[in-house]
């Protein structure tokens, strides 16, 4: 599918989605509550069939957090970037995608560890890299650490 077709599909799927085409791929920004049904459709519909989640991360924009999902279809070879905006930075929550793509499990653990985003219905949400008693989420922009020496 071309970018235009994907754009049409996404508009039909979720009228509230907004687009950003400055980058290499089509970026679709959706509200975080709509994530799971949209992703299920993207994964299961025959003509879309995004079976490969190749990058999952988060960006801290200070006033909101943005979950970024890079999806690719191995059969149709088209790529789309889904961004889910989380406005609550104090207690951010989003649905886990483990039920759709098993690779999300460790990636979501990583995002929880470094950004503090809680994934609902995640099978085993834990601190992946840091100790269990670590205070704060290091990749947040407001993270402070007395041991960190800034240049």
């Amino acid at each position, binding site marked *: 599918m071309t970018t235009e077709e994907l754009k049409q599909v996404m508009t039909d799927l979720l009228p509230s989605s907004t687009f950003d085409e400055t980058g*290499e*791929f089509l970026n679709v920004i959706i509200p975080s509550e709509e994530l799971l049904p949209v992703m299920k459709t993207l994964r299961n519909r025959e003509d879309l069939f995004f079976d490969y*989640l190749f990058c999952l*991360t988060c*960006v*801290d924009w200070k006033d909101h957090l943005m979950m970024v999902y890079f999806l690719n279809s191995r059969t149709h070879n088209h790529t789309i970037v889904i961004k889910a905006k989380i406005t609550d930075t104090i207690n951010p929550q989003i649905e886990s995608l483990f039920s759709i793509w098993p*690779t999300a499990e460790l990636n979501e653990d990583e995002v929880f560890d470094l950004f503090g985003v809680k994934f609902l219905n995640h099978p085993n949400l834990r601190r992946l*890299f840091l100790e269990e008693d670590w205070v704060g989420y290091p990749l947040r922009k407001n993270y402070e650490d007395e041991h960190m020496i800034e240049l």
Partner: protein
Amino acid sequence: MLFEPDHYNEEGEFVVNMGPQHPSTHGVLRLKVWLDGETIKKVEPHLGYIHRSIEKMTESLSYRQFIYVTSRMDYLSAHINNQVCALVVEKALQVEVPARAQAIRVILAELTRISSHLLWFASIGLDLGGVTPFFYAFREREAINSLMDENCGARLTQNFMVPGGIMKDVLPNFQQRVKEVLKQFKDNYHEYDEILTGNVIFQNRLKGVGILTKEDAIAFGCTGPTARASGLNCDIRKLYPYDGYEKLQFDEITSTGGDCWARYEVRMAEMKQSVKIIEQLIDNIPEGEIVGNTKKVIKLPKGEFYQRVETARGELGVYIVSDGGTTPYRCKYRSPNFANLSAIPHIARGHKIGDLISIMATIDLIIPDIDR
């Protein structure tokens, strides 16, 4: 080490920790394994023993500096890691890389791939109980390292890339030296087959063990030789060519077995393909500039950039969010090992604990690349 206080849980399963200090994990990976007798019930990876906060560091490093840190991620593919960073900056700035720099980049990248696979060959021998492959493989690795040392100034972490090209020109005897290294490799390659490939004990430890289906490989996001052994065409050099790979003739090695033996065969064959790539380039290195036109202080335009390359272990992606400044706002490395690791709990289930060693050895994990 690090035993749990209650070794047996309610279901009578024995919980044992492999690592972080374990000779076969090649670093500081810790796998928590639930065993019923000798059969693996569940594996849970515990990471972070070499989490060096590279992504946080990158947010305060300039676009010329952040390249060097990536050599320490997947240190066996250090050159290719640097390449992805250089490529993402070039893509954002739309700088054209001179043909000479591209050719030298690809030659060195393929040499890196050979040396990485050689180290894998050495360690798979060690893990499964043979010491001699270790010495055989390091003989050729040493030759490649010396070549890197002469031309890049470092044996292991080359840091030879700059945005727009390469740091300096190669020595006048570069072509001759590369040919020597390749000749040594080709002359000795049959020894590898003789010592491991034909070994019946070795084959029995790999054949039919740790089967990863094609669907699972996609679902877990596996890439590289691990996924290609399951029949997935995922070579970034073919799918999304960079640095002139589209002009080169080489085969994407795939196998349909999906077991440890298929992964072994794919890697062994990939080394030959790398030799083929270098042979096409080595006599045709174009003359000319080595660095494209870039400013001293690089500022990326506002936006998001994603670039991927094929390292020795799979698809390495770098995702940079720029706010228009001299440092990245956010930098994420999509590392091949992280995705490949997530498949281990799935494919190890039901096997004997000894087979876990074969599975880890053939998936070829580099722990600093997982933790970053």
